[in-house]
């Protein structure tokens, strides 16, 4: 039964329905207003509803059109490391300062690839730290401490 469906279309449609429902429901918390004085909730409510309807349409369009190819499995290691690096960067840039954050972030994101050895990642991290510091902090005069307050500077 399910084999007849395109799983991709169902999932995509599901995401759109969920997102549309979220925006529309959340918009109800804001003043909707009248067409003359549209409140902050007017457009999100309208567009959220449209998105949810489109989502249903997307899911329905997958009926009897099963996916032809099986997608490659995602690289969980890559996802965790790359997203982890981005969150880490945001969480520590003010506290740790530019140099340590860039070094750690470069090393960790290099490790996201199975082809990189820790040694290569380390060398790459050193190189990128020097390069980024030279371009952004020295060259463009970005206002960020080299070493942040958490390190006792």
């Amino acid at each position, binding site marked *: 039964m399910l084999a007849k469906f395109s799983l*991709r*279309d169902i*999932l*995509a449609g599901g*995401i759109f329905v969920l*997102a*549309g429902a979220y*925006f529309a429901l*959340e*918009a109800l918390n804001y003043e909707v207003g009248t067409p*003359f*004085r*549209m*409140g*902050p909730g*007017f*457009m*999100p409510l309208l*567009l959220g509803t449209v*998105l949810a309807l*489109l*989502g249903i349409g*997307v899911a329905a*369009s997958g009926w009897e059109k099963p996916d032809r190819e099986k*997608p*490659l*499995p*995602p*690289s969980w*290691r*890559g*996802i965790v490391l*790359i*997203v982890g*690096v*981005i*969150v880490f*960067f*945001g*969480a520590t*840039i*003010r506290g740790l300062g530019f140099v340590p954050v*860039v070094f750690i*972030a*470069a090393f960790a*994101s*290099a490790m*996201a*690839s199975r*082809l990189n050895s820790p040694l*290569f990642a380390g060398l*790459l*991290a050193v190189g*990128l730290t020097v390069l*980024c510091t030279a371009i*952004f902090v020295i060259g*463009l*005069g*970005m*206002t960020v401490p080299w070493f942040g307050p958490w390190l006792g500077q």
Partner: protein
Amino acid sequence: MDIIGFLGLGFSVALDPINILYCFIGVLLGTLVGVLPGIGPTATIAMLLPITFSLSPAAALIMLAGIYYGAQYGGSTTAILINLPGESSSAVTAIDGYQMAKKGRAGHALATAALGSFFAGTVGTLLLAFFAPPLARAALNFGAPEYFALIVLGLLVSIALAHGSILKALAMIVLGLLLGMVGQDIYTGTPRFTFGVRELYSGLNFVSVAVGIFGVAEILRNLENEKGREVMVKSVSNLWLGKEEFKRIIAPVIRGTALGSVLGILPGGGHILASFASYSAEKRLSKNPEEFGHGAIEGVAGPESANNAAAQTSFIPLMTLGIPAHPVMALMVGAFILQGITPGPNVINDQPALFWGIIASMWIGNLLLVMLNLPLIGLWVKMLTIPYRALFPAIVLFACIGCYSINQNVFDIYAIGFFGILGYVLIRLGCEPAPLLLGFVLGPLLEEHLRRAMIISRGDPMIFLERPISATLLGLALLAVLIAILPSIRKKRKEVFVDED
């Protein structure tokens, strides 16, 4: 003095060796900064503003203008090479440019972008020189209803951005529109969809969304199967365009330039539509629309020209009326004031040497850019021979640093991560990111102009039909929908009879 005399005056200023030097520094910096993902012209100009204190007004403004259009140039380089657009305009270039690069035609894509931009820049500068004041006047006829109609038209026409399911593309546009509404409502100040996070009050940062949904998502895809798939083609065929390619890009370049020039003049956000509109037009007019999205050279030539033409003509409202069309132009206003010149209708009369000098320098700047960029193509393409496993950590870092440098707002960085995952999931599910990005940049404008038009008309929707420009634009929008639907209805009919499988 007539126009030739004024241009002579302008060139005498622009050809001053010192000014040529600063023009060169400007376009060079702009190119380099444009190439760095994440950092756009706004951040660069803001950071370099203090340096221009010590320069003469002409040199300072020539340099800053150079950074702006230089960055437009550089931005397309990263979009083509590593699928990382730094601005809404280069998001369109990334669609086909990156596919060309993947097929070993990065050189062709870059050369097309450079030549198209040069042509567009030249035309834009000429328009600025000959018709700036009347064009700026004409643009003032655009009020809220006209902008609303224009954006509706832009959104409907750009369904062509998708090369897959139209339904999915529509859903992505609407999702983008909604994401664009995150932040404080400009009419009431109500924070929307912010989860109480004050950092989100000014909305999601475009660069975060673009870098996440294009760049990071692409990296995550490439990490899926590192051994089985060659991410980048190492051997790059000839760099220069052949006769055949030249023939293919001429018409798109001219059309893109025309579209971009017109849209760039509109101070209320027309420039954003330029590259999207040009892409849609090229796809509609092409004999092989199925090539689009898989490396069609027209998909690079048109939007790049449109983008650069708009970049030049968006100086028109600024230089003739003192009206900034977008954040970069607002920064330019600041730069003018810091130099002791308040931009306004009087600059053209009070400071003719400066006014015409800047215009002349724009053409020289474009010439310098093409001279700088054509030889650089070889170098950029060489960059692709850097193993991807060493390149992607640099992309991630540049993206984070660049986004952070714009507003020192860490939420802009978290947004990269969020949109990286969202983009990755949606792309895996067969949805394309470009329509989402278009919706994202147009969402706030759509709502702003619709609500403003309704306030001004005191709730009477007839305002959209009573005003000739907005009525015409809405008529065109309706036509675009009909044209889009008709072929698919026809196709559906065929499908009933012919089973695909």
